[in-house]
């Protein structure tokens, strides 16, 4: 498998302003990263502009601030989108951010039929785990279906969805739950796309997945193997897919952020290496390795570089790339794979019996399972049954990691200035017209992507476009489940 082509080394990255993040992207590419992955800040993730009152104190803190096409152009300055694949972790505003990405590609003269990348755009797991929802489930699923359809027709090499288990696991689920809820979310997306008239083989080959690489080495490998087997059977038997590409589960992996500790942070380098190895032995197509300062701040430059080197050492020095699925046939791994598959299958059947993932979410089912698993996990750490080196075993006072990345309010000021200038520069009449057209499209049944693209090209902001959609779709408030 990896003999001809390694997994993509795709480090998730983004902070402060697009200018600063662009510099980090150039640096990481120079250091040997082979794909880009964009981390947006909380305001952007929630469809809010940097100068909005609710963005106070949050601009650029968890990722890069992007409010307009200008920001997107700056983010990719000097980076030809025809020559690199880009993954974007964005969910509720995914269609908007993707439209901005496509507009950047357009401005660079890159052909939409040739560019590739991934949009996370997995709204179901937002209700379940990451909680960056904006609109209610059904209009949100419509938006996802719009992007799947648009990709199938116009951007055929792009992965319009990254059906994710990572966040479900980070919220405290077990490996089985991570697998089951992810695959069941995938089933839901396929159903919605098929319902809209798309032949399954026209889009299924571009559905991608995203899993966690947590600490239990063999269980994680079994999880990936079970995932591939289950998805192939689901696509063939449940959906009648015939194209081989529709049956192949392709996935990105990120090592488990929640497993990294504030105590003795250098231990995290070891945890990440072991977890990355599980991802590679499990056959991941793409990999992000966390930095040792995970519990402190966004990755500092040195820590981010060491995380990338971790992948490079595995790739070039360990020899584990010698054969595909090298643990296949191991009595232990095969038994674990079968167990994980059986248990995940049970969960999928239960959710089917509830009427699908949306009723299950409305009933609080996956949320409750995760909350219980999370509480059980914490209790096992409290009692010492589960040992975490440096936290409840081999505890000692120790040094802090050096050079932590600090993001101050200057990023917010900078972004506010840019927005003020943008609003003066652009044609408000044109913005208003495109937003009106978008509201009409959203209220009807046509694909919203063309209208979103028009708004983006008119320099409507992320916040303005998301607000226009909110006026049609309404908002969403979750019922808290402890």
């Amino acid at each position, binding site marked *: 498998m990896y003999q001809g082509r390694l997994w993509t080394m795709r480090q998730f990255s983004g902070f402060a302003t697009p200018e600063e993040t662009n510099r980090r992207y150039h640096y990481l590419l120079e250091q040997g990263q082979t794909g880009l992955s964009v981390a947006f800040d909380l305001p952007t993730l929630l469809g809010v502009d940097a100068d909005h009152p609710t963005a106070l*104190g*949050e601009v650029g803190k968890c990722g890069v601030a992007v409010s307009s096409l200008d920001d997107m152009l700056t983010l990719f300055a000097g980076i030809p989108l025809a020559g690199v694949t880009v993954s974007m972790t964005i969910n509720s505003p995914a269609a908007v951010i993707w439209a901005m990405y496509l507009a950047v590609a357009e401005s660079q003269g890159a052909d939409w039929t040739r560019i590739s990348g991934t949009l996370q755009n997995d709204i179901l797991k937002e209700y379940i785990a990451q909680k960056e929802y904006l609109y209610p489930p059904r209009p949100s699923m419509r938006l996802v279906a719009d992007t799947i359809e648009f990709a199938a027709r116009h951007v055929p090499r792009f992965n319009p969805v990254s059906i994710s288990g990572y966040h479900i696991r980070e919220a405290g689920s077990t490996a089985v739950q991570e697998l089951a809820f992810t695959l069941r979310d995938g089933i839901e997306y396929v159903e919605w796309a098929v319902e809209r008239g798309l032949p399954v083989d026209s889009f299924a080959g571009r559905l991608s997945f995203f899993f966690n690489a947590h600490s239990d080495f063999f269980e994680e490998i079994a999880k990936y193997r079970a995932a591939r087997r289950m998805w192939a059977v689901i696509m063939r038997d449940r959906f009648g897919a015939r194209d081989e590409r529709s049956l192949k589960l392709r996935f990105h992996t990120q090592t488990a952020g929640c497993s990294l*500790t504030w*105590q003795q942070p250098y231990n995290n380098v070891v945890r990440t290496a072991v977890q990355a190895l599980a991802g590679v032995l499990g056959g991941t197509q793409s990999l992000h390795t966390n930095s040792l300062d995970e*519990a402190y701040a966004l990755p500092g430059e040195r820590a981010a570089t060491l995380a990338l080197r971790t992948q490079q050492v595995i790739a070039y020095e360990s020899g584990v790339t010698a054969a595909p699925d090298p643990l296949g046939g191991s009595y232990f791994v095969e038994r674990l794979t079968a167990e994980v598959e059986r248990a995940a299958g049970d969960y999928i059947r239960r959710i089917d019996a509830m009427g699908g993932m949306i009723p299950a979410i409305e009933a609080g089912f996956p949320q409750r399972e995760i909350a219980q698993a*999370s509480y059980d996990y*914490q209790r096992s750490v*409290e009692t010492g049954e589960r040992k975490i080196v440096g936290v409840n075993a081999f505890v000692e006072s120790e040094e802090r990691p050096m050079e932590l990345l600090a993001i101050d309010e200057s990023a917010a000021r900078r972004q506010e200035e840019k927005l003020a200038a943008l609003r003066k520069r652009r044609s408000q009449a044109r913005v208003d017209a495109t937003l009106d057209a978008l509201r009409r499209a959203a209220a009807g049944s046509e694909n919203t992507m063309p209208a979103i693209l028009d708004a983006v090209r008119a320099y409507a902001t992320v916040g303005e476009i998301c607000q226009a959609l909110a006026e049609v779709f309404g908002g969403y408030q979750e019922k808290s489940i*402890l």
Partner: protein
Amino acid sequence: MDEPIRVLIAKPGLDGHDRGAKVIARALRDAGMEVVYTGLRQTPEMIVNAALQEDVQVIGLSILSGAHNAILPRILELLREKGMGDVLVIVGGIVPDEDAAQLKQQGVAAVYQPGASLEEIVRFIRSSVQQAA
């Protein structure tokens, strides 16, 4: 006679990472406290109003987004304005040491960084609330 300690657990700002807040809320309930969990996307105003309405002795804030320096001072200010200065304010999440020290100077009773023990938090709340009583 012991009335249960009343606690409000809140997620201020845009951060949706609620694993820790939920675990703490449940642990405090298991420890016999009455806990109200506000849910996500709470403004400082919403939090202080909820604390007032629920007549809590403790407000526990979960912030992992780095927005603590913008959010905490506002909450503390509102508590003072409403004469709720005796309410214990504790914070959990991603807060650098320097910021934690400053927050404590401003009136935050405790700052819990990742890996803090549930038992320790329960003990702190019990002893602090008893002292105030």
